[in-house]
C-alpha cells in the first residue's frame, strides 16, 4: 500500500527505494539481515550504474529466491555450485558483471570446492556470502560455521568439536589462494557495520569492473528464527559470540585493489 504523501517543497530526497530491487515482498523472517544485504547489493548496483550489465547467481538456502527480489538478470545454481556457474557465465560473457550471492552452508559445506577453485583460478567474479552460523532454510541444522558448543537442531547437545571440527574460516581460506585479490569479512548488525559492508560490496564489484581478479565479501549475520531469539537480540549475539571465531577484517587486498577509490 503506498499512500500519496505531499512532500513539502523545501525537503529533498535522502533515501529512496533502489531501482535494482523489485517491489516483491521478501519471504524472509522479520529482521533477517538477508534483506539488508540484498538492499546493499542493489544500492551498489545502482550507484555503479551497472544494472543492465549484471548477472547474479542464486544459491540454495534461504536466499534461494533472490532472483525475485533483485531487479537484475539471475540464474539459479544447484546447492553450492554458484561459483562454477558464475565462471561459465563470466567466461562466455566477459562484458557482464557476474556475482554469486550465497549462504555459509552453501559456500562452506557442499560448495567449498567450487568456491576455492573459482578463487584459485582468479575468476573475474564477485561473491557475497552470508554467515549466520547455521543452515537456515532447512530448519537450523549445524553448518560448518556453527560455533563450538552451539545448540542447533542437529546438535542438540551443542557442536562437539571432537566429532564435527571447528568453524570453517571461509574468508581466511579464500585469502590463501593466488587468484583471490580482495577477501573481506564484515557484518550487518548496526548502522556503522552496515555502511562498511556496503563499501566492501562496492569495492568487490569495482574489482571485477577493473578486471583485477576474484573478490569475496563475507557478511556475519543473524538467524533469529533458528537461534530462537528476537531480531535485535540476535544481532547483539553476532557481535558478542561470532566475532571471537570470525574476526572482522580484510584478509587480502592487493595494491591494485587498494588503489581503487571507493566512495
Amino acid at each position, binding site marked *: *500500500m*503506498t*499512500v500519496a*504523501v505531499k*512532500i*513539502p517543497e*523545501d*525537503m*529533498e*530526497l*535522502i*533515501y*529512496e*527505494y*533502489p531501482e535494482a*530491487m523489485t517491489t516483491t*515482498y*521478501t519471504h*524472509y*523472517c*522479520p*529482521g*533477517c*539481515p*538477508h*534483506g*539488508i544485504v540484498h*538492499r546493499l547489493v542493489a544500492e551498489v548496483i545502482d550507484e555503479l550504474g551497472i544494472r543492465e550489465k549484471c548477472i547474479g547467481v542464486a544459491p540454495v538456502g534461504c536466499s534461494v529466491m533472490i532472483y525475485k527480489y533483485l531487479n537484475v538478470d539471475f540464474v539459479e545454481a544447484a546447492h553450492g555450485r554458484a561459483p562454477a556457474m558464475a565462471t561459465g557465465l563470466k567466461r562466455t560473457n566477459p562484458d557482464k558483471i557476474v556475482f554469486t550471492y550465497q549462504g555459509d552452508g552453501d559456500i562452506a559445506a557442499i560448495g567449498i570446492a567450487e568456491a576455492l577453485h573459482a578463487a584459485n583460478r582468479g575468476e573475474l567474479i564477485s561473491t557475497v556470502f552470508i554467515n549466520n552460523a547455521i543452515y537456515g532454510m532447512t530448519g537450523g541444522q549445524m553448518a560448518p560455521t556453527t560455533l563450538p558448543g552451539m545448540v542447533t537442531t542437529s546438535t542438540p547437545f551443542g557442536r562437539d568439536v571432537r566429532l564435527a571440527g571447528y568453524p570453517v574460516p571461509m574468508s581466511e581460506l579464500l585469502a590463501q589462494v593466488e587468484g583471490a585479490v580482495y577477501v573481506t569479512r564484515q557484518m550487518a548488525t*548496526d*548502522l556503522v557495520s*552496515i*555502511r562498511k559492508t556496503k563499501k566492501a560490496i562496492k569495492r568487490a564489484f569495482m574489482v571485477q569492473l577493473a578486471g583485477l581478479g576474484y573478490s569475496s565479501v563475507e557478511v556475519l549475520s543473524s538467524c533469529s528464527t533458528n537461534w530462537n531469539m*528476537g*531480531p*535485535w537480540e540476535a*544481532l547483539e549475539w553476532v557481535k558478542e559470540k561470532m566475532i571471537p571465531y570470525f574476526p572482522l577484517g580484510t584478509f587480502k587486498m592487493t595494491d591494485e585493489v587498494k588503489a581503487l577509490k571507493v566512495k
Partner: protein
Amino acid sequence: MGKGMVVIDVDRCKGCGLCVHVCPVGILALSPDTFNAKGYHPVIVTDMEKCTGCASCATICPDVVFTVYRKKRQPRAVPVPA
C-alpha cells in the same frame, strides 16, 4: 514540519523493530493496536516534528520500508561588509 520526514510503506513492514532500536530521536514504535496486510504490527512515527532525516531507519530496515526526506540546506548568509 521538522528537519526531516519519513514516508512509510506500511505493508512492507514485518514489525521486526530494528528501526525502533536505531532511531536516534526515538520517534519510531511498533503500532500496539493495528495490523498491516501481512498481519504484523507495523512501525509508526510518534512525533514526525522530531525527525532529523538521518536515514538510520532506512539503513537498517531489511524490508526497505522507508523513504527519507530532509530539509534542503540553506546557503549560509554572508555578512555584508559595512
